[in-house]
C-alpha cells in the first residue's frame, strides 16, 4: 500500500512545487506525466488532423493533383498511425496517468520512474515516426502495413523501416505503461476500495491494460519479423522465399482488433463517469457494466479475422468469425442501454461534458450498427476496403473515442489545471464538432456503398463520387475549425483564470474531494472507502455538501525523487533503434555499441538510485 500518512502541521511548511524544464524532464509525478502525455498527444492529434485535411482537400474533386500519389500514400498511412498510436492511445494515457491514482485514492502509480520512462519512449517514438517526413520517407504502406507490399522488394525506401521501427518503440512505451497501470490498480487502491467498488473509468482502464499486455506482444513479434525481412533479408512474409502474406494479416489483426477496444474502452469509462454526475444519479447496472466490459475484451481476441473476410478463408472460418463478431453487439448494447438507464429519471444538467457524453452515445450507436452490418461476411465482401468502412470506424473512433476524450477534457480540466473552461465556447465547440463530424463522415457511408474504395489518391469523374466528397471536405473544415475554438477556449480560460472549486460539477468520485489542482501528494491522508461513489455518498450523508478542502502542508509525506535516468534510458532506446536502422553503414557497429552503452548505463544508474528520500 502507499506510504504512511503524517500530516503534522508546521513541520516544514507547504512543499514548494518545482517548475521549469528540468522539473518536467525529471518528473516522476503521475499528474505531471499525465499533462505531458496530454500536451504531446494533442499536438500529434493536430498533426494527424492536418494530414486528414490535406487528404480531404485532395479528394475534394475528381482527378485532383493537389498532392502526388506518393505523398498521398504517406499522408493516409501517417494519419492512421498518428491518430491511433500518437493521439487516441496517449490521450487515454493522459487520463490513466492523471486520474487512476486519484480515483483509487493513491499517491502515485506503482512504478513512478517506469511511468516517466513510458512517456519519454512514447514521445521519442512519435518524434522518430514524424522525423521520416524530413527524409521524404514517411511510411507509405498503410497503418496495417500489409505484406508483401511492405517487403524490401516492393517498398525499397526507408519509409517502412521508419514504420516498423517506430511502432516497436511505441510498443515498448505501451507495454511498460500497461504493466504499470495493471499493477497500480491491483496494488495501490485505498483501504476499502474493493475491485467491485472501483469507479467505472478505472475498471475500463484496467481491462484496457490487460488488452495491451496480451495484444502488444503479438504486434511486436510481427514487427520484429518484418524488420528482419527488411534489414537482414529473412523471408517470413516473402512468398518467393517460402514466406506467407496471410501470416502477417493474422498476426496484425490478432493485435489490431483488441487495439480497437484499447482505443474505445477508456472512452466507455469516461462516459460512465460523466453521465451519472450530470444526471445526478448513480451509474445504472454497475455490475453489468463491469462484466460487459470484460466480455467485450474477451471476445475482442476472438474476432480478428473479420478484417479478412475478403481473403477467402473458407465458409467455416467466415461463419465462426461472423457469429463471434455479432456476439460483441450484445455486451455493447448492454452498455448503451445502461447509459440510457443512467440518464432515465435523472435531473440532466446540460453542461459541456454532458453534451459530449450524449453526443458520444448518439454517434457510437451508429458506429456500432454499421459494425454489425460488417459482421455479415458476404455483405462485408462489398463493404470492406470502401469508404463505408472509413465511415464506420470514424463513427467508432471519432464519434466514440474523440467525443468521449473531449468530454473528459472538459469534465476534468478544472481538476487538472485549477480553472474552468468557458461553457459557451465549450458548447460552440460541441455543435461545430457534431455538425462537422457528421458532414464529414456520414456521406462516406453512402459514397462507400456507391462504390468508392479506400486509400485511392484520386477518383475519376463519372463514378458519381464528386458531390459527396465535396460535402465531406466542407465538413472536415468545420471539424478542424471546432478544435480551433477549443484551443481558443483553453487560452482564454488560462488567461482569465476563473478559479475552479474542488468539486465544480457535484462529482461522485475521490478526485473531487481534494483541491483543484491536486497537491503533489494528492491526498493529505489516504481516504478509507466504504462503498461505490464514495464521495457522492459522503456528501449525501452530510446534507449534500462538504466544505471546500484546504491546501495543506505535505511535510513528512514521502514521495518518489525526481530522476533523469528514465529520460536517458528512453533516449538509449531511441538511439538503439536508430543504430539498428543504420546497422549496414560503415559505423553501424559503433552506433550500436554507443546506443547500448547509453541504455545500459542509464538502467544501471536507475536501478541503484534511491527511489525515495
Amino acid at each position, binding site marked *: 500500500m502507499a506510504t504512511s500518512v503524517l500530516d503534522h502541521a508546521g513541520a516544514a511548511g507547504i512543499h514548494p512545487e518545482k517548475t521549469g524544464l528540468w522539473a518536467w524532464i525529471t518528473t516522476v509525478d503521475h499528474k505531471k506525466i499525465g499533462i505531458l502525455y496530454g500536451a504531446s498527444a494533442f499536438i500529434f492529434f493536430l498533426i494527424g488532423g492536418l494530414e486528414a485535411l490535406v487528404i480531404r482537400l485532395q479528394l475534394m474533386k475528381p482527378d485532383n493533383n493537389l498532392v502526388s500519389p506518393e505523398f498521398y500514400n504517406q499522408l493516409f498511412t501517417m494519419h492512421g498511425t498518428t491518430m491511433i498510436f500518437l493521439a487516441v492511445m496517449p490521450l487515454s494515457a493522459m487520463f490513466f496517468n492523471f486520474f487512476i491514482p486519484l480515483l483509487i485514492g493513491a499517491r502515485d502509480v506503482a512504478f513512478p520512474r517506469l511511468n516517466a520512462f513510458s512517456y519519454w519512449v512514447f514521445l521519442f517514438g512519435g518524434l522518430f515516426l514524424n522525423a521520416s517526413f524530413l527524409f521524404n520517407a514517411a511510411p507509405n504502406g498503410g497503418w496495417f502495413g500489409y505484406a508483401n507490399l511492405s517487403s524490401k522488394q516492393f517498398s525499397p525506401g526507408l519509409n517502412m523501416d521508419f514504420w516498423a521501427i517506430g511502432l516497436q518503440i511505441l510498443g515498448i512505451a505501451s507495454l511498460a505503461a500497461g504493466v504499470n497501470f495493471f499493477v497500480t490498480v491491483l496494488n495501490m487502491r485505498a483501504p476499502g476500495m474493493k475491485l467491485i467498488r472501483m469507479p467505472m473509468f478505472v475498471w475500463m482502464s484496467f481491462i484496457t491494460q490487460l488488452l495491451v499486455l496480451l495484444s502488444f506482444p503479438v504486434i511486436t513479434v510481427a514487427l520484429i519479423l518484418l524488420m528482419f525481412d527488411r534489414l537482414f533479408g529473412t523471408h517470413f512474409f516473402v512468398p518467393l522465399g517460402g514466406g506467407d502474406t496471410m501470416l502477417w494479416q493474422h498476426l496484425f489483426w490478432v493485435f489490431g482488433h483488441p487495439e480497437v477496444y484499447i482505443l474505445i474502452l477508456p472512452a466507455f469509462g469516461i462516459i460512465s463517469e460523466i453521465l451519472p454526475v450530470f444526471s445526478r444519479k448513480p451509474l*445504472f447496472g454497475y455490475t453489468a457494466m463491469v462484466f460487459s466490459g470484460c466480455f467485450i475484451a474477451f471476445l475482442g481476441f476472438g474476432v480478428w479475422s473479420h478484417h479478412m473476410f475478403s481473403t477467402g478463408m473458407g465458409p467455416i472460418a467466415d461463419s465462426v468469425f461472423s*457469429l463471434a463478431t455479432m456476439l460483441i453487439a450484445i455486451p455493447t448494447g448492454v452498455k448503451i442501454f445502461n447509459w440510457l438507464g443512467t440518464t432515465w429519471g435523472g435531473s440532466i*444538467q446540460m453542461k459541456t461534458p454532458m453534451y459530449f457524453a450524449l453526443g458520444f*452515445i448518439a454517434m457510437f450507436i451508429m458506429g456500432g450498427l454499421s459494425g454489425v452490418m460488417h459482421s455479415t*461476411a458476404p455483405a462485408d465482401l*462489398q463493404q470492406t*476496403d470502401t469508404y463505408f468502412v472509413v465511415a464506420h470506424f470514424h463513427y467508432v473512433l471519432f464519434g466514440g473515442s474523440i467525443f468521449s476524450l473531449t468530454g473528459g477534457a472538459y469534465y476534468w480540466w478544472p481538476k487538472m489545471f485549477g480553472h474552468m473552461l468557458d461553457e459557451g465556447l465549450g458548447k460552440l465547440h460541441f455543435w461545430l464538432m457534431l455538425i462537422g463530424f457528421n458532414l464529414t463522415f456520414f456521406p462516406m457511408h453512402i459514397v462507400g456503398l456507391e*462504390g468508392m474504395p479506400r486509400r485511392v489518391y484520386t477518383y475519376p469523374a463519372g463514378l458519381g463520387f464528386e458531390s459527396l466528397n465535396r460535402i465531406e471536405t466542407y465538413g472536415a473544415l468545420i471539424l478542424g475549425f471546432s478544435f480551433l475554438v477549443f484551443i481558443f477556449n483553453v487560452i482564454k480560460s488560462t488567461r482569465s483564470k476563473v478559479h475552479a472549486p474542488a468539486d465544480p460539477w457535484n462529482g461522485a468520485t475521490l478526485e473531487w474531494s481534494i483541491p483543484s489542482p491536486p497537491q503533489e501528494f494528492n491526498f493529505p491522508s489516504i481516504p478509507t472507502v466504504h462503498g461505490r461513489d464514495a464521495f457522492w455518498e459522503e456528501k449525501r450523508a452530510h446534507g449534500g455538501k462538504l466544505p471546500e478542502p484546504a491546501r495543506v502542508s505535505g511535510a513528512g509525506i514521502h514521495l518518489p525523487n525526481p530522476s533523469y535516468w528514465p529520460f536517458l534510458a528512453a533516449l538509449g532506446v531511441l538511439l538503439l533503434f536508430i543504430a539498428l536502422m543504420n546497422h549496414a553503414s560503415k559505423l553501424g557497429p559503433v552506433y550500436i555499441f554507443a546506443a547500448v552503452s547509453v541504455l545500459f548505463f542509464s538502467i544501471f544508474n536507475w536501478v541503484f538510485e534511491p527511489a525515495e528520500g
Partner: protein
Amino acid sequence: MDHRLKRWHSVAGALLLLTLLIVVVGSAQADPYPQSTLHPKGDFALMVDKLFRTTLFWATLVFVLVEGALVFVIIKFRGKPDDPEPKQVHGNTMVEVIWTAIPALVLAMIAVPTVRTIFRTYETPKGADVLQVEVVGHQWWWEFRYPQLGLTTANELHVPVGRTVALKMVTQDVLHSFWIPQLAAKRDVFPNRSTTLWFKAEEPGDYPGQCAEFCGLQHGRMAFQVIAQAPGDFDGYVGRMQATGGPAAAPATPPVDSAAAKPAAAANALNTATLAATVQAGADTVAGSQLFMMKGCVGCHSLNATKPMGIGPNLAGIGHRLYIAAGWLENTDANLAKWIQHPQTVKHGVLMPDLGITEAEAQSLVAYLRQH
C-alpha cells in the same frame, strides 16, 4: 441566457444537423453510380445485396428506437441546477435481462441468413457451361485469361450475359483485390495462393470495377471494366480476338521480354510487319507499325490475344477498349497519344518508361493501335 433559450439552442443545433444530413442524402440521389453495390446486376451481387438489406432493415430499426430513446431522455429528464435530487436507482435486473435478450434475438434474425449466404458464396459453380477466367493482378493493371478460348487480354473483361463466370485469381507481385460491385463483390488476390469468385451477369452493360486492396503507388489507378454482352455479341468478340493472330498484329519472332534483346528483335520483325501493315492501311499506320517495333513497345506488349508474351498488358483489341491505362482514362486519340508519349506523367511509377516519343510518332502509333 435563460433556461428556455438554452433549450432552443440545442433544438436549433439538432435541426440544423438533421437538415444537413437530408441535404447529403438528397444530393446523393442526384448522381448516377455505375460502380454501386446497391444496384446489383449479377447473381452473386444480388445474393449479397439481399443479405445487406436484411441487416440494414434491423440496423435502421434499432437506430430509430435507440436514438429516439436518447432524444426522449434529453428532453424529458432535463433538470435545473436547483431541482431536488432524483430518485437514486442502481439498476433493475429484469430490465437488464430484457435488453440483453432482445438484441440477441435481433442478431439471430441476421445470423441465420448470414451463415446460409456464406456457404453459398463458396459454392463455385462447376461444369462445362461455366466460363473459366484466370485473373492475374499486376502493379497496376489486370490481366484476364480465358483458358477455354485460348485468349489473353487486359483491363477489360468481356463476359456473356446469363452464363456463369468462375474466376481463379493470383497476383504477379503484391496483394490486390478484385472488386466488381454490380456483378459480384470483392476477393483478395495473393501471390502464393489462388482465390476464387464467381458471378453471372443478368443484363448487358459496362460495369466498372477497381482494385480494392492497397497495392502501392498507383493503387488509385488500377481499375477495369467488365463488359457483359448478349451471347451472340460475346461470340463475335471472341472471334475477333482469336483472329488477332493475323500478320498485321504481331511479330513473327518468339516472345521477347529481356530489355537487352529488344532492338535486335524489333529489327528482325520490322520487315514482315511493315509489309503486312502497308497492305492493310495508309502511311500513318505503316509508320505506326514500324514505331511499335523500333521504339520497343513490342518488347513488353503483344498485339495477339492468342499469343500472350511480354510483361505488359496484351494490347489485342486496344483500339476498341473503353478506357486505357488500367480502366480509368477514356480511350480517346488524344488520351492514347498522351499516354504513349508521357506514361510517367499520366500515371507516375508504372513500368512503361518515357521513351522520348514525339507528337507525330504518337499520332502514328495511335493510328496503328486503332486498327487492333
